[in-house]
């Protein structure tokens, strides 16, 4: 007898408490004390009242958190070594070797290029993959089955008829592209490199697309083409750096000749790596622009 009542009680518990008679209920909020029944107060007629109060509380607490974080961080910055301080901890053997032996060890006159594409090339591979992943994610979310029908929107939707844009664009566009290519190709010799040159090229592509109209641009540089270019460049990057990571870590030798620092064909893999990074950055910028400025036509 006692067993049976225990079992019954267990069954009731599984079914949700006795108060709740919905069939097939495993367990509801109703099984907690202070559940639905006591909360039905007639004076709270506005359904958004609770939500509005939450939003207000959220705003106040967000401001409080941000202000306290700002104060804490500002105070922290005041405790840090001042800029240009020769005794600062960042002036150590790390930057010293980058600056003093960078040219000799990487073959790049531009120390920054040597740092990001040789000393810390794995990070740069990761960064390029971040760009690729971001493009893929945007494609993932915007592209649907009916991608063939696109219409344009945004500030430059009708700009292909604008005479000022046409005239200025025709003068500027060749210069922008030449400058972008120059910055990419001279990345190991002068300030610049794949990231900055690629950004210039991407800006040029965006200008071109607002001059000629999206539809013409998409014929040349569709999402498939930009993705394909990024994939090819990342694979090339992975092949080159994979080779040098593997040979470097296993002390195999077989190093890529560095050439004479200052020549355009020098510094081992840095020139082709810059080209790869440049193309990836340009493709990413352009595909962000074109994907977000198009609208799906049902």
């Amino acid at each position, binding site marked *: 007898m006692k067993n049976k009542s225990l079992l019954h009680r267990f069954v009731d*518990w*599984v*079914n*949700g408490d006795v108060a709740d008679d*919905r*069939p*097939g209920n*495993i*367990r*509801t*909020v109703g099984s*907690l004390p202070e559940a639905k029944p006591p909360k039905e107060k007639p004076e709270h007629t506005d359904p958004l009242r609770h939500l509005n109060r939450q939003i207000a509380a959220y705003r106040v607490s967000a401001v409080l958190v941000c202000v306290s974080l700002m104060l*804490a961080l500002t105070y*922290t910055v005041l*405790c*840090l*070594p001042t800029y240009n301080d020769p005794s*600062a*901890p*960042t002036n*150590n*053997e*790390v*930057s010293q*070797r*980058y600056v003093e032996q960078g040219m000799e060890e990487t073959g790049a006159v531009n120390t920054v290029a040597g740092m990001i594409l*040789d*000393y*810390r*090339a*794995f*990070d740069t591979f*990761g*960064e390029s*993959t*971040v760009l*690729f*992943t971001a493009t*893929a*994610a945007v*494609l*993932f*979310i915007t*592209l649907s*089955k009916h991608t063939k029908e696109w219409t344009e929107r945004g500030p430059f939707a009708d700009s292909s008829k604008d005479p000022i844009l046409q005239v200025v664009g025709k003068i500027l566009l060749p210069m922008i592209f030449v400058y972008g290519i120059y910055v990419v190709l001279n990345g190991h010799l002068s300030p610049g490199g794949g990231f900055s040159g690629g950004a210039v090229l991407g800006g040029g592509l965006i200008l071109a697309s607002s001059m000629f109209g999206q539809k013409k641009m998409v014929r040349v540089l569709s999402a498939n083409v930009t*993705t*394909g270019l990024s*994939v090819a460049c*990342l*694979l090339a990057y*992975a092949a080159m*750096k*994979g080779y*040098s*990571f*593997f040979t*470097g*870590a*296993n*002390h195999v030798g077989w190093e890529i000749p560095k050439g004479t620092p200052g020549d355009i064909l020098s510094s081992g893999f840095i020139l082709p790596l810059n080209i790869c990074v440049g193309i990836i950055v340009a493709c990413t910028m352009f595909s962000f622009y074109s994907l977000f400025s198009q609208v799906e036509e049902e």
Partner: protein
Amino acid sequence: MPFVNNVPFFSIFIAMLGGIVMPLIKNGRIALRVTEAAAAIIGVLSAWLLCAVVASGESFTYMMGHFPAPWGNELRAGPLEAMMALAFCMIMILGLEGGRRDMFDDISAHKQNSYCLMLNLLLASVLALVYTNDVFTAYVFIEINAISACGIVMARRFGNSLVAAVRYLVISCVGSGLFLMGIVLLYTCTGQLLMPGMDTAVQALAASGEYRVPLLIAVALVAVGLSIKSALFPFYGWLPNAYASATTSGSAVQAGLISKGYVILFIKLIYRVFTLEVMRDLHILQALFVMGLSGMIIASIRAYQEQSTKRMLGFSSAAQIAYIFMGIGLGTHEGMVAACYQILAHTITKPLLFTSAGMLIRSAHGSKNLHDLRGTARKNPLAGVGFTIGGLSLCGLPLLAGFAAKYYLGVAAMGDPKKMLFALLVLAGSSVLNAMYYLPAIVGIWFPADKGAAEPLAEEREDKGFILSTAVFIGLNIFLGVAIGPMIKLIELGLSLL
């Protein structure tokens, strides 16, 4: 250098290449096969590496290029890293196999390759977080991790999952941002980005008391950033919806991989850079302990109140992550070992629950509500068994992984007389709460509300992938629940060689 030392580099590169070539593979089935093959190769390589490092009894650093520690990027691997890499690859394959049918139903055909792209890059980023010896490399791969995880959440492309993905993206960007600020401050006061150089500099600063405020803020920012990313108690708001609105395999892989990668990175940073003493001096560990304790209770209560199965599992994940951080917060070596055991236990249990719940939800014709799942285990007994084992494991039934982890957490808590009382009380309370929401769910899925309504067998064709993955998951769960001694020894070896 023995050839096996190339494994970390190969693992990360195979996963990244697997992601990069995905746009070229248009067929979703082939893309899934390639993803699984990549994970399988990495898994085999990691097992080989694990055997090698356990046999040699030492860990090693691997130069990524021609330049050693303070100048070039480096990887580092030992038993703990290899074991985690192996576990993550296994979860990847099993989660994908278990949720395969849902993946083909939920994601439109021309997007399945992009989904696999995200999965591969997610695995690559988690592997890089596990193996890296460079704090900045960790940040770069945290970015990849965040974007690809968002892609996985929004793969189903309907309202809920988009909202969840946006919320996840925003919160996770805050986490990455705080982590980045922490690294910048650390770099400014130590001048190093690689762990081996940074640790001596941090020790020197902690001993001399110079730059104490920046050091405190930097460590706090890193800790808060990583705990936001891994959904520790006050920051777990993004987790339930992100897990619930992804497709089954996405939820399983996320629950197994994402937050665990960050926790491993955090443990690595504690051992290799900050050290327990400095963390304790700066009172960060105590804060984590309190956050862990509150998370264990509050996330469990939220799970208890939940009606949707997958959101319930999500809140339960948040509670389990709070267990991990409680272990870390104990601030002892045993606490760390227990935290690692909890990582392993949860990383193999939660994906099992998600894949089984996915199958049960299929039997309930897509309804995620708990009361619609009544009796579904009769239709799909294997999924029922999977859900039962997973749930009981998290409740702490002996011979299962969850029990072993909780038991060892309790043992570890004994080591600290001040924290012991709280830890044990909360551990007990949280276990009771776990049982309060898992047991009714388990009983409910086996017993239909009105007798006679349950059809005896599933109408669908047998899903071999699901059978295989559930069997292996259950096997792993029992293995972790039984082989406590050897696994603890392995983890201790791994931690001492970090």
